[in-house]
């Protein structure tokens, strides 16, 4: 059967392989559905676990401010938000609407969750994309260089800078950068937009304004990631440089530079490439502190606020989105790993 496909360009094994892969991916996607269902129950339950609900918090806040709220008003509020119904009914209502694209109402903001999350999620993703790009563009070349020129002055310098980057908390870095920006460059550090564009509709000018603001948070958030990725890239490249197949490649008479990129670096990139998916949930949640310090309109502070005020539907929706991203990220990682490293192709058997 395998022998019927002629020609060297596409060995018969490749057809078999893609079928196996397709089946594997389909199977994994189908497995996602029950997992996500369970996660939605768990996240909804967790939000309801603390005593009280949004109305209790709301009333307590009003009482602290010296205002009286009558029993009838509380009952009316609970009626309004549907909080007087049993938990499972609330869940069923929420999840049914969620599947139709309606994530419910945020009590705190008094706006639909969809509208609240929508723009912030997009901004967060744009920022995270640039951060990821920044991290890889900096860390991969430096890591390779550090490994190839191990113990050189440049290697020591990058290692030193890297450890400082790793050891400095991001929010501190944000404060320092803000201070430098305001004190020396007269920059309006903080936020993603200039005041005149804040509520303006999207336009080329607004995008340009955003990009001008974005580099600072990208550098701040990316610093620790860069430092960590340099260490990983350096270690894996060093590991691969000593392997026998590198010596084989060298014995062919290849130039040292292209040989290094084609063989050891190609293999050393596997763990980096295959963990891209794991960055997905971090993209949404990982920058809460920096976003708070820099006043960024991203999802991190929104989730934080929602959890603080027991804003049921907003918190549950965001946690469900985060969990979905985690699962999808892991799936992407697994598929990428199988794609870049033939040793890990699933379901494949040796031929001898």
């Amino acid at each position, binding site marked *: 059967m*395998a*022998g019927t496909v*002629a020609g*060297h360009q*596409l*060995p*018969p*094994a*490749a057809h078999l392989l893609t079928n196996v892969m397709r089946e594997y991916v389909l199977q994994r996607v189908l497995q996602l559905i029950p997992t996500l269902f369970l996660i939605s129950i768990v996240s909804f339950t967790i939000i309801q676990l603390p005593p009280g609900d949004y109305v209790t918090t709301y009333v307590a806040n009003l009482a602290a401010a010296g205002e009286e709220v009558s029993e009838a008003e509380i009952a009316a509020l609970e009626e309004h938000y549907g909080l007087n119904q049993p938990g499972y009914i609330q869940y069923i209502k929420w999840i049914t609407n969620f599947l139709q694209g309606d994530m419910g109402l945020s009590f705190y903001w008094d706006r639909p969750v969809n509208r609240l999350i929508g723009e912030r999620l997009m901004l967060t993703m744009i920022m995270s994309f640039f951060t990821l790009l920044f991290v890889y563009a900096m860390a991969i070349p430096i890591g390779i260089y550090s490994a190839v020129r191990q113990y050189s002055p440049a290697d020591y310098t990058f290692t030193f800078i890297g450890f400082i980057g790793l050891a400095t908390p991001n929010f501190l870095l944000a404060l320092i950068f803000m201070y430098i920006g305001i004190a020396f460059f007269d920059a309006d550090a903080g936020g993603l937009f200039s005041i005149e564009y804040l509520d303006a509709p999207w336009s080329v000018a607004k995008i340009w304004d955003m990009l001008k603001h974005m580099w600072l948070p990208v550098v701040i958030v990316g610093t620790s990631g860069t430092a960590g990725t340099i260490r990983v890239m350096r270690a894996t490249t060093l590991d691969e440089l000593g*392997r*026998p*197949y590198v*010596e*084989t*490649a*060298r*014995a*062919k*008479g*290849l*130039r*040292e530079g292209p040989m290094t990129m084609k*063989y050891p670096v*190609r*293999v050393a990139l*596997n763990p980096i490439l295959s963990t891209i998916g794991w960055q997905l949930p971090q993209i949404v949640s990982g920058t809460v502190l920096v976003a708070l310090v820099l006043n960024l309109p991203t999802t991190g502070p929104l989730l934080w606020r929602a959890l603080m005020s027991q804003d049921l539907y907003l918190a549950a929706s965001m946690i469900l989105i985060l969990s979905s991203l985690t699962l999808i990220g892991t799936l992407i990682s697994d598929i990428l790993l199988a794609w*870049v*490293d*033939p*040793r890990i192709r699933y379901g494949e058997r*040796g*031929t*001898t």
Partner: protein
Amino acid sequence: MTVQPNDTLLEVKDLQTHFFMAEGVAKAVDSTTFSIGRGKVLGVVGESGCGKSVTARSIMRMVRPPGHTVDGEILYARAAETGPTTSVDLLQLPATGAEMRSIRGGEISMIFQEPRASLSPVHRIGDQITENILLHQPVSPAEAEDIATDMLQQVHIPLPEQRMGAFAHQLSGGMCQRVMIAMALSCHPNLLIADEPTTALDVTTEAQILELMQGLQADLNMAIMFITHDLGVVADMADEVAVMYLGKIVERGAAADIFRDPKHPYTIALLESLPRMDQKREWLQTIRGVVPDPYSTLSGCPFHPRCADFMPGVCDEIVPQPITLEDEREVRCLLYTEHATRETPPPAEEASHQ
């Protein structure tokens, strides 16, 4: 020399490759001299750490820091396309320069001890072989692929067209070594350096690989430098044998002569430690002691602490120089010098004399 000078393919003179470590300088290869005739097989034998592999990498100019080839000559008779053969000192060429790179892999190629680890885990074996061909031969990618498939056929790999698309982890160790041989021979090198190519394989596979190498060596009229720790492996194959100890060649000569009548006490001990079918022994002979620390500076002959014929006051004081005996045998041993005849009777009675 057992070969005529004009038949010499590679001549290594006083090669010195040292490793500059924090602990000191390790003289991995210390004034090693030998030559390989065109189409001949040289067996290089010695224990782990004696400098066999470093000698091979010195010839390939692939010694990595902290190792450096500090002195010597490696004269390689390079056949020009037209005109006479010219002698090139490989140590005078820049290690990563164009000329050395065209020799490395094209005219002198190498196979290694761990066949599976020596192939890239993420590239198809066909791509790895064609890469070598495209690097050294003026052919199109399609032609290179045909040559590669043909080479896989020559090393007796079943279904070569399909194996071109396989990865190293899908093949057995023996198959991987066949692939390595196919890759190394794809450009018809003048010299194949085989660094313990069968050590990691089981004995049945080892025998098959050795048989394959012998067959190809005869077909392609290529010289082989066969590095091994096992004298038994080179017994059938080698024309000449060089025995190395601590970076120096202690005995060199025609393979048949060395097996029939070993001269150096180390060679004698190595041969005695081989298991033999025709002798009934209670215990397998071993060589007492271990290879000394590479940083130590032993006075006199480096083998004297382990030698069965140790002459006190001679072997631990005088550094033996290579001496040529009958049959163009070269031995680095004081037993065959005037020091031995003056102070002790012939080696056989040496023990009773003390």
